[in-house]
């Protein structure tokens, strides 16, 4: 799994989301990040597991992209939401 495509953070999030189905081992080598995904259920469909994990990885990457781009707006909206509550002075 080339780390240039998916960042370490996205991989960690995907591994977290998959803890009910698989264990994920991270190996950081010269060729980038390697993820070893092993099913918890021995009878699990490996093809399905791999497909679902790749999709989760893509989703996490998109989420992080979106979070980074909307962070200033999110802060502005939260600031606006609390601007007249008086709580910001506490």
């Amino acid at each position, binding site marked *: 799994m080339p780390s240039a495509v998916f960042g370490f953070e996205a991989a960690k*999030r995907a591994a*977290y*989301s*998959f*803890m*009910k189905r698989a264990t994920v081992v991270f190996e950081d080598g010269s060729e980038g990040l390697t993820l070893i995904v092993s099913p918890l259920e021995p009878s699990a469909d490996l093809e399905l597991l791999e497909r679902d994990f790749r999709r989760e990885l893509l*989703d*996490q990457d*998109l*989420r992080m*992209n*979106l*979070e980074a*781009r*909307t962070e200033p*707006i*999110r802060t*502005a*909206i*939260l600031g*606006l*939401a*609390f*601007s007249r*509550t008086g*709580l910001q002075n506490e």
Partner: protein
Amino acid sequence: MSKFRPVADFDGSIARAYTPLPVKFTKLRDDDYVLTNVAGEFLTLPHSDLKAFVEGDLRPSEPSYVELKARHFLTDDDSDVAFDLLALKLRTKLAALANFTGLHIFVTTLRCEHSCPYCQVSRANDDRREFDMSEETALKSLDLVFRSPSPAIKIEFQGGESLLNLPLIRFVIEEAKRRNVTEQRDLAFVIATNLAVLDDEALDLCLRHDVLISTSLDGPEDLHNRNRPRPGNDSHARAIAGIRRARAMLGHDRVGALMTTTAASLNRAREIIDEYIAQDFGGIVLRPLSPYGFAIKTKSYQSYDQSRWLKFYFEGLDYILDLNLAGFSFVEGYAAMVLRKMLTPFQPGYVDLRSPAGIAIGAIVYNYDGDVYASDESRMLAEMGDHSFRLGNVHRDSFEQLMLSEALLEPLESSFAESVPGCAWCAFEPWCGADPVFHHATQGDAVGKKPLSGFCDRNMAIFRGLITRMQDRPGVRAIFERWANQA
């Protein structure tokens, strides 16, 4: 500067710069995803449109673009009110937080004449008076009740069987009303009772002080009596007789009922709902069993798994929807609470579906012995020997000591869903809750690993189930909007 905008601005097929607003997304089913904004408004998109949206490639001519813009998921040159509107909606959603604790639960006694195997409060035998709350403890508890700044105060009496200590209930009501002459709060009272020992004295008290009755009805007679054994095996008959007497004296809408699902209930969703209809209730809350008290000791909690309960829940919900689509109005209460979050700018008061968690700042419990707990489930846990959520004692601790105790602040802060792995990026987070007590009870820490959480699993299934029903069944959206606005 030109007086007119360039032609390209009006050509929807040309990509135009837009700014995505804060959005979370989670898979719904197959290729469809749910997106929510900070105010909890939602829409669904196919994955290809979601990807195009995130990567800035969505074109204005596409239906998804129009929908995303209309619901404040993106902003462009033509829309400049989205920030203000989202902030206003968020402020409305969070307004109740500033009010602080509104629900104050007094455990009048642990005594009970029922011996329900699933009991979550670990009742005591009904002749042991050392499990009764004293007047002195009640007075100290009332001091704390009125320290809450909430303009609306609800005092709920629970047990054991709360009515077995009726003199204490009377004492608390009269004292609270006396203090309220100067406090001027919106004061309300609820008695949670199995109704088996209801008498004229209790009803007269309820009538004089406008007290609501909340009782238990688990379904048809055989199921109810099996779930709720008592001497004489007549729990159902007493509950029904009590409901009728209370309605006749207090008014039809002054009596509510709750059911608990046991393993014996799982194949009988329709019969349970039919029983509620037969007893002329306008709705039902299909509740799962909680992992506390006798439910754990007697292995009732382990006797069915989550997927089996969800099958029961959706079978019941679909039956209720069939009834509504056929013209008979009837509400499933848990769905109604969730839908209020999904479809309106308002938040229901339900403690479990709140973040920050509702422990102590939404509801608080004064136990019979003066111990103060962060929630009803916290004292259930304490009856099992785990005092993690005991904030202190009314005789020993001040309001400040209780509300600033580590037993409260640590789980409140650590479980805040916005900053918890799994919840932080989940589209359902604006509708969900933190429930640190559940996660402590089931996983040993207040945050919990969400992919392994029964709370998370159950609520995500319900959120998905509600959305897919709105998509798949014509007429359901209108029913759900009605439920959301009356919850």
